[in-house]
Structures are given as C-alpha cells and as structure tokens.
C-alpha cells in the first residue's frame, strides 16, 4: 500500500466549485471504450497486468472454508501454469493483488494463503457491509476483529446518511460502490472520480487509489478500465498500490482470453481450474 493519506482540512468550497456536465461525461465514456483497442501480444500483456490488479472477491452468504481455500489457491495461481510458460511469464510471480472476503472468513483466508505460501494481503469488507446501517460501536469492533484475524486492508462502507447531510470522512482509496447495488462501476462515474483524484493530487500532493467494483465481468471491459486510468491519471496509478479491480468472474474470462491467445482455440468450461 502506498503511504497513508495524511489528510487535509475539510474545505467544502473545493466541492462547491466543481462543475460536472453529465452529457459531456457520457460522451467521453463512450469514446474511451472505442479508441484504445489493443490486440495480439500487447493485449495478452495488458490482460496479465490486469490480473495483478484484481481483488479476487467472494462475498456470498454460503461462503465456507472450502471455497475460501479454493479462492486463495486461485489467487496464488490465477492463470494456468502451462499458459504462463507459453508466454514466458511463469517466473514473474503473477498473482492477484489481494483476496477480499467477509470478516468471518478472514481467518480461513489467512490460513489458506499461508498454506499456499503466498504473501498477498487479505482484504476484508467491514462496517456493516453492504448497507452500513449498524451502530458505530459494532462497526469499529468489526474492523478491530478483522485486523486481529490478519486482514491488512479494509473496505469500509461509509455511512450514507452522513454523506447526504454533508459530513465527510477521509480515506486512502475510493471505491465506486459496494458492488451489491443494482448499478455499480460505470465509466461516467469513474471518469468523475478519477478527475477528482487527480485534482486532489494537484492540490495536496497526496495520491489516492481507485477501485471500481461490481459488474466488471469481461476481459475487454478490464482493458477499457486500464486505459481509462492510464489516460486520466497516468502510469503512476497503474500499480496495485493505487489501483484495484474488485471482481470475481473477471479472472476466468481473462484466463479464457489468454488460453485463446496461446492456443488459438476457445476453451471449454472444464479446461480451466475453478476459482
């Protein structure tokens, strides 16, 4: 993780001066998907890079230690070994950026990663995920317990009632949403968030990270996200310390694309290991 956001004095005039023209942002969002297409070996390289940004996530009601174990193993070996060997990338230590689970499963995740010999961080959602409508006391206790269990990153759900009444908090990363809403990570929203991150950096020198989550399922989409961050913020932000993609099925689609690039064929469901 990058250095913590030291924070600044809350200056609401920054916010009131901001103007966002929605139709213009929509137009930019359409363009970004069409104008930076990468092909062939460059596409494969970008896809592998995208893998290193994934927070491999499982947030279901029926999570148990067995599927957590499977997930952690997949985080350590996201792409099938022989495919990586064909691309000569098997020894570059390609893993996902983190594993993201519910607080109750943090223990299992830490244990599974240790068994796999992997040192990627475990991220936990906390603070009354996904609605955030619990007492402050229990929310703080959740975070404390998750950290005790071994989580090194916390996805905090902000108290929306505070937001709507104008009482703000600070953070190191901003995330598009919990991923459990009907509409999650869309390009227009992301463009506005990325511009805000850039403005904050120009004003204070602090670099804040960005995490789109929810609804990112195809490899093509992930490439569009990467090029969006590259265009708006630059290469400095294309690092796991400053950029994450919260996804679960994305990894298998990326793996399919890599399979196709290496072999020239389309894989069946059973060809690639489950996550």
């Amino acid at each position, binding site marked *: 993780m990058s250095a913590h956001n030291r924070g600044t004095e809350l200056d609401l005039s920054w916010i009131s001066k901001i*103007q*966002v*023209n*929605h*139709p*213009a*942002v*929509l*137009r*930019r969002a359409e363009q970004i998907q069409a*104008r*930076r*297409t*990468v*092909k062939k070996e460059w596409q494969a390289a970008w896809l592998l890079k995208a893998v290193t940004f994934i927070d491999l996530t499982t947030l279901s009601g029926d999570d148990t230690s067995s599927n957590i174990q499977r997930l952690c193993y997949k985080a350590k070996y996201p792409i099938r070994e022989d495919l990586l060997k064909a691309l000569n990338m098997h020894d570059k230590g390609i893993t996902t950026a983190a594993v993201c689970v519910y607080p109750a499963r943090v223990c299992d995740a830490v244990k599974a990663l240790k068994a796999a010999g992997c040192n990627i961080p475990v991220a936990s959602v906390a603070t009354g995920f996904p609605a955030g409508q619990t007492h402050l006391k229990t929310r703080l206790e959740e975070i404390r317990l998750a950290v005790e269990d071994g989580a090194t990153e916390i996805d905090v759900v902000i108290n929306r009632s505070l937001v709507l009444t104008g009482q703000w908090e600070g953070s190191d990363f901003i995330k598009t949403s919990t991923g459990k809403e009907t509409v999650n990570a869309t390009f227009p929203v992301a463009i506005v968030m990325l*511009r805000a991150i850039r403005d904050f950096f*120009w004003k204070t020198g602090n670099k804040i990270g960005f995490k789109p989550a929810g609804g990112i399922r195809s490899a093509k989409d992930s490439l569009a996200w990467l090029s969006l961050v590259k*265009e708006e913020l630059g290469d400095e932000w294309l690092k796991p310390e400053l950029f994450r993609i919260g996804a679960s099925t994305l990894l298998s689609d990326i793996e399919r694309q890599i399979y196709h690039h290496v072999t020239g064929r389309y894989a069946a469901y059973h060809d690639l290991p489950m996550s």
Partner: protein
Amino acid sequence: MRTGVIGLILPPTFSFLEMMWRICPALAVGCTVVALVPPASPTPLLLAQLSGELGPFPGILNVISGSASLVPVLASQPGIQKVAFCGALEEGRALRRSLAGECAELGLALGTESLLLLTDTADIDSAVEGVVDAAWSDRGPGGLRLLIQESVWDEAMRRLQERMGRLRSGRGLDGAVDMGARGAAACDLVQRFVREAQSQGAQVLQAGDVPSERPFYPPTLVSNLPPASPCAQVEVPWPVVVASPFRTAKEALLVANGTPRGGSASVWSERLGQALELGYGLQVGTVWINAHGLRDPSVPTGGCKESGCSWHGGPDGLYEYLRPSGTPARLSCLSKNLNYDTFGLAVPSTLPAGPEIGPSPAPPYGLFIGGRFQAPGARSSKPIRDSSGNLHGYVAEGGAKDIRGAVEAAHQAFPGWAGQSPGARAALLWALAAALERRKSTLASRLERQGVELKAAEAEVELSARRLRAWGARVQAQGHTLQVAGLRGPVLRLREPLGVLAVVCPDEWPLLAFVSLLAPALAYGNTVVTVPSAACPLLALEVCQDMATLFPAGLANVVTGDRDHLTRCLALHQDVQAMWYFGSAQGSQFVEWASAGNLKPVWASRGCPRAWDQEAEGAGPELGLRAARTKALWLPMGD
C-alpha cells in the same frame, strides 16, 4: 421546384460522410450532380464507384477528378444551374468574382475554423474534451480559437497540457490513435503558421505521441499571441488551438465576433441563462452548448459572414437546391465588357436642357437618413418628371458620403430593433400600414401623375398596407425545434436578422415594390438602407414622412440619386450584411462581383421584371427566406 444541374466542388479534406451530406439532398429533390474532386485522394474514388452503381439512373451523379484549375471551367459550363463550392476563403472569393453575371447561381461554404468559449462556470475537464474533439482529432475540420475566462486560465491551461500529453497520432487504421495526418499541403500550412506565431512572440506548446515523419504534425497549443499580429487575423489551421483570455461575458462576445469568420462555436457554461445569452449573441451558423462538433443530417449546418452563406442539412439544405416554382431557369447576362472599375463611379450630370416652365414645385426632398430628412453631401438635386413630362418634384442626389451615413445610422438602430420582440415589430408595421391608409389620397394622386389609373392607384396603396400587416403577422412564428435522433435535448433552428440590408428597388411599382421589400426586411429584425425607384422616388419619400414619426431613428433609410452610383457604394461597402438588387442586368452583375469583398449574400434580379402585385412574387416565402439567416442551437440535456 428543383434547381437542375448542380456543380459541386469539394476540397481534399472532406470525409466521405461530408461529401454524402452535400450530394444526397441534391439528389433527393431531383437535381443531378457533377462533383469535381481533387486528384490523388481515395475517398472521391469511392464516390465515383458508388455513382457507377446507380444503374437504373445513369448520370445523376458524376465524379470528375481534377485540379483546382478546372473549377472555373466547370463553373462556366452552360448547362450548370448552380455551383456549390466548399473550400478555402480566397478561392471562394475568386470564384464569386469570376461567376458574376454568369448563368449559374453560386453557393459558398468556406473555412474550417471553429470557436470554443470557456467560462468560469464550465466543467473544465469536459471542455478540454471538447477542445480535443474540435481540433486534436479526426472529427474536427480545422483549427480552433479558444477563449478562456481569465479566472480559470491557469486551471484550463494545465488540464489542456496534461491532455495533450496523452494524445496519440499515427496511421488512421491503427485502433489506438486519436488523430492521423492530412497530407503534405496541410502540414506545410500549419508549419508556416506556427513559425509565424513564434516570431510574433507567442508561446507554442506541442505534445503527444506523434511519429516524426513528414505528414504527421503534433497537436499544438498557442497562447500569448498578440491580437494585432497577422497570425491572429487568418484562419487557424488544423491541428492548432490558439488560446486567448477574456474578462467578462460581454468581452467574450466582442472578441468572438471580432473576426470575419462565422462558422461554428461552442459555449461551455453550467449556468443556463449565461449559456443561452452567449449562444444567441455569437454571430455563427451553429452553436453547441456544453458540447462541440455534434452533427446530424436533419440540422442545418452553415455559416455567416465570410464563412459563406450556403447550408447543408435540414430544411435550409434543401432550399439550397430549390427555386420558387414559376421562376425561369437562369438567363446568362454576362457582359464581357463591363468595366468593374468604372461602373457607377461618376455621376452623370443632370443639368436641365432649358429653363423650367410651370408652377414652382415644392422645395426638394432631402435624404431620409437617421430618422429625419437631411441635405445630401453634394448639395444637388435632380428633377423627377411625371408621365406627361411635367416636373413632378426635386429629389436630392445622394453620394458615397450619404451612403456611409445611412449605413452608420442603420447600424446604430440595429441592436435595438433586433432586440425587439416579434410582437413589438409587428405593432410598428401595423402602425405604418394604418398611416399609409390615412395618406391614401396623396399617394394615389401621385401615382396618377405617374400615369396609373385612379382605381389601380388606390388598389396599390391598399395592397401595400395589407402587405405590411401580413408580414407583421408572419414574423410572430419564430424558430422551431428539430428532432435529432440519438440526442437527448432540443436543437433549435433560430431565424436571426442579417443586419443592415441594402435594397435597390425596381423602377416599376414605385410604391408597392418599395413596401413589399421593406416589410419582410424589417419584420425579421433587419435595418434597411433603400434606394427607391429611379423613375419616381417621391412615393417612397412620402412614406418616409410617416416613418419619421413612427419608426426609431435609422431603422429605415432612403437615399435617392443616381442608381448605379449608389449601387456601387452599397455593393462595395464592407459593413452591409446583405443586398437585394432589382435594377438592370449590368447592375446585377456588378453587385454579384462586388459582393466578393465581404461575401455578403446578394439577390439580384438580372434585369428580369417581377410581378410585384402577384402574391407569389410580391409576398411569397422566398422573401421571408432571404430576409433572415438560420442558426442551429444545440442543447444536450442531462444532469
């Protein structure tokens, strides 16, 4: 009804889509097209192939690939009814001069520059994207003049520079580039411009990932260019953006309207009132609010001032290829020995042959300028004779100085008049109609002295009053909204006044023609400088007596005198926005030739008489179309 054969001249920078947008409406209304395209570009060859595929109708679309030297040849072919020229300013001007008096009409669409006005209440990041759309991409036709409000200058420049750094240039078919190249000629042009700007002391910034081979040129941002430098006067080439600051919205309008070009512009502001104020105030053909470069075939696209006054798209695009039914195909009246330098230069003297006999007439009328009668600069008058040869009265002989004064007075009256609501204008026209009716007996008796029967004279006066009322009522219907596919939000087609309109009335119908031309011009918000009928200007001057009390000063100005001389002065005047000429064939030719000076739209009768008493010719929709210009105002919505 349709015009006939259209000769279309296209520049090398046009995309296939833009060519189609000009050809398809012509074909749709039934015209046939001969397109002259520059050699050595693949797009026109695709066009030629397409025209070859029109099997059942061979010959409706013809494509000739040839250099610019063929333009005058094509334009002067006897079968061509209209020449539509799209391209650079100087070539358009030269074409206007060479086609004066020819059989073919001329439509010009010149220049590629656009304008972007960035206020302090704009979404600056989105406006920067607008700049990229306008100048640093393959979608924009030319360069951009960027006006930034001073208070957000630093922020805007910083974001522009960041954004420039991320642009990529390369071959068009590479999927990840923002812009390509436009050929060696365009590259030379922009290199000259940038060198010139640098030598004038401007700051030039270039960035982006661009190959260093010749036809590729990096995106360029020029700032601190002194407004008086020659670079600031010429059109900005692609891919240059020239940025200048402004302090207030009022200053922005002055700076923006302070060029001879009037193509397209965008206004970026999140305050609706301010955005509309600026949008209405810009003298351009297309205004986008918080967007740039949106186009659609159902929206008229064109320009004003030196961007030419021809349109494509929308209803105006169709009118380009139509003429009123019943009008004959154009007659050639080229007078090869018309000397443009001496036409109308000297005023023939009007010394009387012998002493006048008869009762002494009333004192001579002055010129009606600035709301009152005043003596002409030359201090001379000429006699007007009635149909039996007797002296009817004396009128002043106006000259160049008087024309200058009249145009100035008209300009002073213009902002107030154009700002009036249509209802207020209608009220004034109705008041004039009532005044005419009160004056019926005087006017009818004057017409009788000119040889018109009493009954017919009275009918003429009544018809004039009716026409004034009709135009007053007609102008209540202002612009309407167009429906554009794929856009949320309205696009308004506004009809705006041209400015100062010069009208030279025909000899016949001294009252009716005068009123029939005055009414639509005034109704649409223009101010007018009129040269009344040479045979009998007294009727117009009678009407002026009423206008002196009813109208604001300078709204309508009437200058009598030698028609050719006054025509010359008006046609060469750079600050007259349009001219209607109903005199001789030679005069028509001169007017068309002289209009190349500021490319004012002209409507000349070519010496053909017009039936002013018939509805179709005297009060038809053609008059309404020619009395105003269109502006397309795009208002994308969304929050």
